[in-house]
Structures are given as C-alpha cells and as structure tokens.
C-alpha cells in the first residue's frame, strides 16, 4: 500500500511519515509548504496524503492543522484563546484608516494606491502602506498594465496566517460583495477612459466579465 521509491528503497509507512510530518510542523512556528516538508523527508513520501491524515488526526483537538495559502501550520484551536492569557502578544492597534486600507487591499487585490484612494475618498496617508508592509501583511504585486504602470499591493501569507484564513477566497463576505458588484471597478460616468476596467491578465475579481479568471489569477497562486 505504501509508496515505493523508484530507487528501490521502500518509502516509510504512512504511520512513520505522519510522525515525521507531525514532528516537523510541531517544531516550527511558521507555516511550511508541502514542498518544504517533502524536502526534509526521505524520498518517496506522499506529503499531501499525510497532511490529510494529520488534519483528521488533529480535528477536534486543542491543536489543529491549519492551512495558510499553500502552507500548513499547527495552531491552537481558536476557542481556547482564553486559556493563553500569558502567551497573548500585545496587538498593535491599527488606526481605522489603516484597517480600511488593509481591507481594501485584501478584497480588491491587486490594488493600486489610486484605487485605495478612490474607494476611501482621501489620500493614502504617509507611512500607512509602509506600516502594512512592515507588519508583513501586504506586499507588492505585479505592476498594473495601465498607463503609468502603477505598483499594486496584495496581501501576504502572513496576513492569512494572522487572521486564520486558508486563502484570500475565504475573506468574510467576499462572495456577497462580489455578487453585489461592490468589488467592480466602475468608472465615474463620463470619465470612461480614465478608469476603464483593466484588461490586464493581472486584474483580479474586478470587472464582472473577468470574474472566473480573476479568481484563479488571484487566489490560486
């Protein structure tokens, strides 16, 4: 039943593989991709399958296997947070403006600074993107293929990890917002050319017609 390494050595049993992956994830405080895990294991291991088993094993326990983007990490179950008063780290209090900007980037990604400003109706204040970058929750995406080729911002795996999201698709209310057209990029009537929806392959969920493709572009990377 267990996989056999082409070199002729039998791969470890699934039970043995599960022990190893468990130990690796347990020892590490940051998420690891299945490639990173596989690199540490003997040849012939079936990491995806082992991860499925491990997730089952930890279901309902005090510690859970959580998925972060395409990575995995062990995290304590969220309902037990109250037990960990001593481990609680002081959360930096973000300003309302910073939180809004973060949300706009997460829901509209990739988002340019101009788009953020359009949505909020005010200039992005100095140092705000800086801080979001420094927190590691936001990074630079591909430049937009529009005049000026503006820089774009996207959210990171660390953002997903912090908010316990498996992927950006799991952002609360994303489907409803998209269905309500609130994630479209609609130019001001009369200014058609200026804000014309991006035809660039980078374009995310924005633009009704590009929804299915945008989805895969944005979230499956």
């Amino acid at each position: 039943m267990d996989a056999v390494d082409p070199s002729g050595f039998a791969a470890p049993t699934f039970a043995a593989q599960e022990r190893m992956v468990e130990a690796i994830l347990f020892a590490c405080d940051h998420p690891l991709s299945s490639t990173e895990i596989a690199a540490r294991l003997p040849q012939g291991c079936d990491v995806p399958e082992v991860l499925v088993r491990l997730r089952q094993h930890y279901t309902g326990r005090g510690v859970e296997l959580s998925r972060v983007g395409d990575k995995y990490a062990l995290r304590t179950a969220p309902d037990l947070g109250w037990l960990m008063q001593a481990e609680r780290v002081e959360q930096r209090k973000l300003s309302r403006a910073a939180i809004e900007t973060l949300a706009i980037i997460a829901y509209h990604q990739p988002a340019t600074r101009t788009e953020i400003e359009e949505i909020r109706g005010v200039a992005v204040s100095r140092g705000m993107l800086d801080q979001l970058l420094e927190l590691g929750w936001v990074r630079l995406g591909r430049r937009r293929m529009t005049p000026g080729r503006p820089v774009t911002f996207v959210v990171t795996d660390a953002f997903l990890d912090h908010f316990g999201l498996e992927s950006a698709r799991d952002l609360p209310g994303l489907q409803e917002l998209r269905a309500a057209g609130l994630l479209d990029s609609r130019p001001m009537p009369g200014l058609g050319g200026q804000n014309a929806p991006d035809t660039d392959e980078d374009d995310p969920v924005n633009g009704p017609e590009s929804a299915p493709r945008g989805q895969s572009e944005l979230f499956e990377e």
Partner: protein
Amino acid sequence: MSDDWDSVDERRAAEELIVDVDGFEGPLDLLLALSRSQKVDLRRVSVLQLAEQYLGFVEDARALRIELAADYLVMAAWLAYLKSRLLLPPDPTEDGPSGEDLAAHLAWQLERLQAMRDAAARLMARDQMGRDFFARGQPETIAVTRRTELQANLLDLMRAYARLRTRDEFRPYAFDRSDIYALDAALARLSQLLPITLDWSDLSRFLPEGWGSAPTRRRSAIASTFAASLELAKQGRLDLRQSEAFAPLHLRGRGGG
C-alpha cells in the same frame, strides 16, 4: 440654507457635524455620515437630498467661519452641479452622463465605502493569531548544522535605494556641473589680486578669464566672486562700496596685503 433644517434638533445635529469636521476622513466619509440621517438602505438613498445636506453643511461651516479643506469644496462644487443636473430637465443637445447616472455612481461609491468598512470590521473581529489562537510557543532547534541566514526585507531594499537616490538629489553642492565657478576658486583669485588693487575697482573686473561672456558662466562667476568679497571684507582684508541700489559694486584692498 439653515432654514431648511426641519427642526432644532436636526440643525443642532448638523452643527455638531460641522464642529467635528476634523473627525471626517474626507468628503466621502462625510457624505456617508449624512446619508445615515436618511435611515434607509444605501441603495435607496436620495442623492438629491444628500447633495442638499452636504451643501447645507458647507454653507453652515462658512457661517460659523470654519475653514474646510479644499477637497470638501471640490465635492461641494460637484454636488451643486449634480443637483442642477438632477433638477433641470435633460438638455438633449448636451453630451455626457445624465444626472441619474452620476447620482447612481455616487450612491454606489458610498455603498462600496460602507461595504469596505463593514468588511474591515468583520476582518478585525476574526480570530487573530497571538490573541485567539497561537503558534508553537517553543519552536525547537535541535540542529547540529549551523547556517547563517542573512536577512533583508523588501522595505530595507527600497529604503536603501531611496537613501542612495535622495542623497544624490539633495547633494548640497554640484561641482560636477561644468559652468560653476567655485567659491574657493573665487576666494583664491581675489586674495591673489587684492595686494595690487589699491584703487576702487569694479567687481566685474575680478572675474576669471573666460567667465565674463556666457550668461550662465558669468552669473556663477559673479555670484562666487561677490561671496568671496564678502568673506574677505569680513576678514578685514578689503573694503566694499556701492553708490546706490543696483549700482556696480566696487572694492579695494585694505593696506599692505
């Protein structure tokens, strides 16, 4: 405008809004706050009423002599235009979007901003790492091998580059430009010539050779020579005089060199 307020309470509420103008993050935020007084779904908000409320707000702010930032006034101008488009019958000869289209867009913008606010609140209400769930508290490092990992993040990289480039931008001198006559050169030349300058002589006679004709070179040479003469006057090595404003400057060496 203030007569439009239906009651004292509403008027008072409006004044509170004005006094709190610093509390608003721009005109869109203010419009969103005003729309709440309509107590309807944002999709059914009356943009005309909203425009009037906003214009009333700006009017009242003026009456109370409260300075509004420029973008509030830009929005006011746009809303006044929108109001006229909404009230007047459409002019068939005129191109461009209808008042209804513009109003619908504004309503959509407000709805989108509100949606993003709600989304932000829902995001922050999620379980968060380090507060509701936790990573391994004692990551293990049983390794035998030692590897040094050099760390640098994107922000470091961009800042390093910015620092390098702005260092160039703000470099306080620019000797590498060819048409600049340096102050030390002017000082050296003037000091050399002073002992033989016993009579009042026009400053322009001290310009170095080849710097008197081309305008940019001449300007630089005059400026540096003048600065040098001030420096030497301060040291007591020469006298300067000027008969009236904008008249030629004259200088002469002071005793014995």
